[in-house]
């Protein structure tokens, strides 16, 4: 038996842990672009902010797209509800609320991540320290994930946690693709230029897939392969298909446990079936942007339905 409020806390705790890490990954990708290319750096930071869904809030506060400003806003600004610091704080508040549902190891790893990031992000980050700060964020969230997978019982508590992780991750990957969808379109005239190479690498890097891509596809970046990898690849842990594979699986566990299926099962099943049947050519033919926009909308709806069907509020 699980309280609806506890399920809600677990779900959001994991969404925010995922988000805390995604912010670091986005800044990492932006930083790489800024380091390897001197021109158009501000454009690159702009798309980082768009991927993070934080562009509007950023421009209210800053006029320049610089590494220092963006990193500060996405990593440590507590007025930004999605910054790494706010996310880890929100994750911890949720963890505190659902503490009785967590193993001691899981709680301690979240609490320690919060303590160490709070210390690290207390003062503005010196640009020279940025790489090590980004590493530390990824390390802390990896430790949380490690103790979570290593110690949690695979029951409803685990299921609701995973739902949070994969709804957030699917949203994040889809947004990254949507911000850059135009560089993936085959009709673009400057296909194959060095500029594109950088752009493509940046997409892959923001989902930590720039190396694994080469294990799966040929060494050269090819837009349709990149899209295929991030949307349809079953094995790539941040692809939309991968996320939906686990979302449907955990929803199925819950449905079996409780002996009841809800609207969220239907929604997740539809998206899953659509991804399983699709080819990247079909997606490109029908319009990549439309595909992603629909996906993001349905994914948000899935989150709302989960909350309603399992009495989060």
């Amino acid at each position: 038996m699980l309280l609806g409020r506890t399920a809600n806390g677990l779900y959001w705790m994991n969404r925010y842990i995922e988000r805390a890490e995604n912010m670091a990954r986005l800044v990492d990708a932006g930083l790489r672009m800024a380091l390897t290319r001197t021109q158009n750096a501000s454009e690159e930071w702009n798309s980082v902010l768009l991927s993070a869904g934080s562009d509007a809030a950023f421009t209210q506060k800053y006029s320049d797209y610089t590494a220092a400003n963006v990193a500060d806003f996405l990593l440590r600004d507590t007025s930004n509800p999605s910054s790494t610091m706010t996310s880890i704080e929100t994750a911890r508040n949720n963890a505190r609320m659902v503490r009785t549902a967590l193993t001691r190891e899981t709680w301690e790893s979240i609490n320690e991540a919060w303590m160490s990031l709070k210390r690290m992000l207390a003062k503005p980050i010196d640009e020279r320290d940025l790489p090590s700060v980004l590493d530390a964020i990824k390390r802390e969230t990896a430790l949380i994930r490690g103790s979570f997978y290593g110690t949690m019982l695979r029951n409803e508590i685990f299921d609701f946690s995973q739902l949070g992780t994969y709804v957030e991750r699917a949203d994040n990957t889809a947004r990254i693709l949507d911000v850059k969808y135009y560089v993936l379109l085959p009709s673009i005239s400057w296909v194959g230029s060095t500029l594109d190479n950088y752009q493509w690498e940046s997409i892959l890097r923001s989902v930590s897939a720039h190396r694994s891509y080469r294990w799966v596809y040929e060494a050269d970046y090819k837009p349709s392969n990149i899209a295929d990898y991030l949307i349809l690849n079953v094995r790539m842990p941040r692809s939309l298909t991968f996320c939906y594979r686990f979302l449907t699986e955990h929803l199925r566990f819950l449905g079996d446990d409780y002996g009841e299926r809800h609207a969220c099962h239907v929604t997740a099943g539809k998206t899953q079936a659509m991804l399983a049947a699709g080819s990247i050519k079909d997606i490109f033919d029908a319009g990549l942007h439309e595909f992603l926009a629909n996906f993001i909308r349905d994914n948000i709806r899935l989150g709302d339905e989960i909350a309603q069907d399992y009495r989060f509020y």
Partner: protein
Amino acid sequence: MAAFDEMLPEISGLRKPYSAYDRWLKEQDPARLTEKMQDAERVFRKTGITFAVYGEQEASERLIPFDIVPRIISGNEWRRLTQGIEQRVQALNAFLDDIYHRQEILRAGRVPKELIAKNEAFLPEMIGVRPPAGVYTHIIGVDIVRISENEFYVLEDNARTPSGVSYMLENRETMMQLFPELFQQIKVRPVENYPQLLRQSLAAVRPQGTKGAPTIAVLTPGSFNSAYFEHAFLADQMGVQLVEGQDLRVVDGHVAMRTTEGYKQIDVLYRRVDDSFLDPLTFRPDSALGVPGIMDVYRAGNITIANAPGTGIADDKAIYSYMPEIVEFYTGRKAILGNIPTWRCSEPDSLKYVLEHIDELVVKEVHGSGGYGMLVGPAATKKECEDFSKKLAAKPSNYIAQPTLALSTCPILTDKGLAPRHVDLRPYVLVSDRIQIVPGGLTRVALKEGSLVVNSSQGGGTKDTWVLDD
């Protein structure tokens, strides 16, 4: 003021309960002990054993300082204490039953009527209500102070929602992690079964109509409450749900919690929410922490609320001074554990005395708790005494006064080695069809030299409390 030190009384030397510990201590490298002290702090911070201090903006989560020198009580001393505590707890429950029914003690003139009628802690809503199994106060923390080898006094009865038991458990856990060898050398009675005892005790007082095993839940005001860690800790250790008001609702005459599969009935609610917030329909209408209609369910006998609403009338500081009479009235015997002599400022003669001797006395608010709103005369400045006298004279019935007792001391580890500090003791008592007292309790220690205020909100710390198995 020379106080009685529980380890090293100045004249008689090392006391027996401490002899084995002292032997061990002498073999330790002081540097290693300092290191262990830091280890302890790390453990506490990591596990998130924190508390919030009201009125302090920064550091909303702080650790209660922990001292690694245990407070040791011999088996004999403990036996005497438990007899006194049991008697007192019996009397508290009998008093509550009486006060909400026939009020014999008022008729007999042993406790003044107006003390009850005008008291905010007295809940008219509880008149004529008999809780399941007839138990009113299920969990009690009796604050005890010692002033010499054989003199123990009750400082306060906490019969509402006493806190701190999680520190008792975590302190022991930490000590066993830090000094496993000590526990092999010295036989200390265990405290770690407290959560199981609590669960059994709560199950034993379930409503009569409960079918099968009762569903128990802990009700917390939420994660921003200063004692939230403890609420979560106890729910976790008992293996029961930790609920908030927003999770609960009255469904078909029972209190039920919103789960992922719909509403599920609760039979026993261990609530850590104050009376006035419990039911917005009966008490404070603005309360979002309680359950609308829970009092109706309670009066119908369909839920056990632990502790029962209205138990505050038994631990009220104005009632406290009548405890010797109360114990004698209901148990037919003199109180084994004494009270500290108390002046009730509502009485003109007492008020006069207190005002004249304010610099020697401890003056407390009748309804205060946590060490807030009190004056320790000998430690206060002249100005503080004068200001307090004005408050006191303006509303005498709001205050009681007690002599400044030389609370016993127990050494703590400081930078300069061991140093004596004043301590008190809060053993935890569970009442169901029987009375159980976990051997030990929470020792609170005033960390400032000479200070008598042990409350954690006022710079107090804690120690592990050992009852020897001898």
